[in-house]
């Protein structure tokens, strides 16, 4: 290709060979300025958000860690039992996974409770924000065409890119980790809420309208109930994604199972890292089964036993 470069240079079209310096959108400095502006002008607002999330997180964390492990164990197992509609096999699986976490290393139980509380807060935030957004974009096509690319962006952007500004805004600790987790984990619940509502049979919507239901009645009486299996699937996906952020979150000061993995790797203690890794997987199975069980129960009820 050398001859082509030379040729272009000779005819004075050097700009076509090397990217011209002037042809540049200074996105870099814009964003830096924007973040700086956010910190200086709205630092207090972020601090307020940060504090309120911290308070909730602390309360949940203290409850989960303060509870004797045996009580927690029976509580979660009982939850699985009732939510799944008294399915013995699934309950046993949950119990075994849960028990194994402590069995691998007693210290991991406590770490698992810390991780669980971070996940709970992140998941609750995802649900509280994600379901309304999902409902909104299911009703508004134009808004949807704006939000969907944003969701793609949130899922594909490497998480470190927004983790660092999050630290700048919220300070070190659990809150920026939760913020990053919400960004990464919220798309499924939005997408599946939107999808679920759109999949509701249009004939049913027509019947609802024809009987004189107003919008709220239609939403609460028909659309959300019939879309619920999909919405729950979204919540399940969201919890799984949230759990997958645990290790990354631990890098910015969240404690829990992720920290164990990180410490194990730093000390070249592969055993310790692997133990914590297995505990994460076990916790994931427990969360997955419990969040899926309810959706499955609903589906069974809707499609006939």
């Amino acid at each position: 290709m050398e001859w082509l470069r030379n040729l272009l240079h000779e005819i004075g079209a050097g700009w076509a060979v090397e990217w011209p310096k002037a042809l540049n959108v200074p996105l870099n400095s814009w964003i830096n300025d924007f973040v700086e502006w956010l910190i200086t002008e709205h630092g207090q607002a972020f601090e307020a958000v940060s504090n309120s999330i911290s308070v909730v997180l602390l309360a949940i964390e203290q409850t989960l860690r303060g509870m004797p492990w045996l009580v927690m164990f029976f509580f979660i197992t009982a939850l699985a039992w009732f939510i799944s509609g008294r399915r013995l096999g699934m309950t046993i699986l949950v119990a075994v996974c849960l028990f194994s976490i402590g069995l691998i290393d007693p210290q991991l139980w406590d770490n698992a409770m810390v991780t669980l509380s971070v996940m709970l807060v992140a998941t609750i935030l995802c649900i509280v924000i994600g379901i309304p957004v999902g409902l909104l974009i299911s009703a508004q096509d134009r808004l949807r065409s704006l939000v969907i690319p944003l969701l793609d962006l949130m899922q594909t952007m490497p998480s470190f890119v927004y983790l660092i500004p999050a630290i700048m805004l919220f300070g070190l600790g659990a809150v920026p980790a939760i913020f990053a987790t919400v960004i990464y984990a919220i798309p499924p619940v939005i997408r599946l809420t939107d999808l679920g509502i759109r999949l509701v049979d249009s004939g049913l919507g027509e019947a609802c309208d024809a009987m004189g239901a107003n919008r709220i009645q239609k939403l609460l009486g028909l659309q959300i109930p019939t879309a619920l299996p999909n919405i729950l699937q979204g919540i399940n996906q969201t919890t799984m994604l949230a759990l997958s952020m645990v290790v990354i979150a631990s890098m910015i000061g969240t404690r829990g199972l992720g920290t164990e993995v990180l410490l194990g790797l730093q000390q070249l203690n592969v055993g310790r890292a692997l133990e914590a890794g297995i505990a994460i997987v076990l916790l994931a199975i427990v969360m997955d089964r419990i969040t899926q069980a309810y959706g499955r129960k609903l589906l069974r009820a809707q499609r006939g036993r």
Partner: protein
Amino acid sequence: MGASSCERNGADEELSLIEIRNIYKIFGKSASRAFTLARSGQSKQRILSETGCTVGLQDVSLNVADGEIFVVMGLSGSGKSTLIRHINRLIEPTAGQVLVRGRDVLSLNRQELVNFRRSTVSMVFQRFALFPHITVWENVAYGLKVQGAPRPKRMERALGWLDKVGLNGFERQLPRQLSGGMQQRVGLARALCTDPDILLMDEPFSALDPLIRNQMQKQLMALQQDFHKTIVFITHDLDEALLLGDHIAILKDGLVEQVGRPQDIVLRPASPYVREFVRDVNRGRVLTAEAIMTPCPRNKGDNRGEASVTRDTVIEDLLHQSVATDRVLKVVDDTGGVIGEIHRDAVLKALVARP
């Protein structure tokens, strides 16, 4: 009224409950341009190729009298389902008016429309459209629920209607646990539960087996005897239309081909299209004595001992009498006065479609 009383056109003089006036419905982006074309009488195909718009309905006007079953008949794509959805405004017309009891449905604001749908008009759907996540009785009572009726009242009314459609004891089932026919009976009970004046039925029996369809038609007629709703009934089945309809409108490509009583349609098809349709109809089951008789001046009480039939007897039911007697059959009205007579030839002629 003398001799002319043999011609009955009372139905046309009754007050219309629903008036549909010059409805146009055009689907597509450049609807206003297509509307101008449609108004100037261009054909559906021409408008489609010029503007890319589909003409759903073209200048449709109909009057539905209080308490009658009005059947809109047409093949798929004729616009019949689109038409019925204009009455409760599930679809907005491109132009035209829909009046119910003289009130313009299209001028209602959102809240008025909701109230109108809650109190005046309800609908039965081809695919039943029962809510899958709630029980049968909750489905039936849904219309009352959106009105804010208390639960005991909802339950009582729903169970009452389930009983009337013969589904006693199924109230706690989920819709999918019932057969198609039973599901549509739930749909019917749901539509009737709010005690509406108008029942819109969009091909309600088309998805059912012939035998079940027959049962449902009979049940509908029995219910109509008791409750006298105004029913707009959509079907693609001419036999069903002739059986149920007090009046029938035949729709083709969004245009009304003919409106009339079943006998008018069979005896005097207004277009080749309608003639084609009615050719295979069992005329003996549709045509009544009145439609085929030779009218005569009304004559009270002079029919002692003579063979007579009431004016709404269908040919099928007077055949054996006609064959048995060598003289003419007298046709009598509700009070027993003779209003016409039928020769055997007339019966035979009526049974054979004119070419």
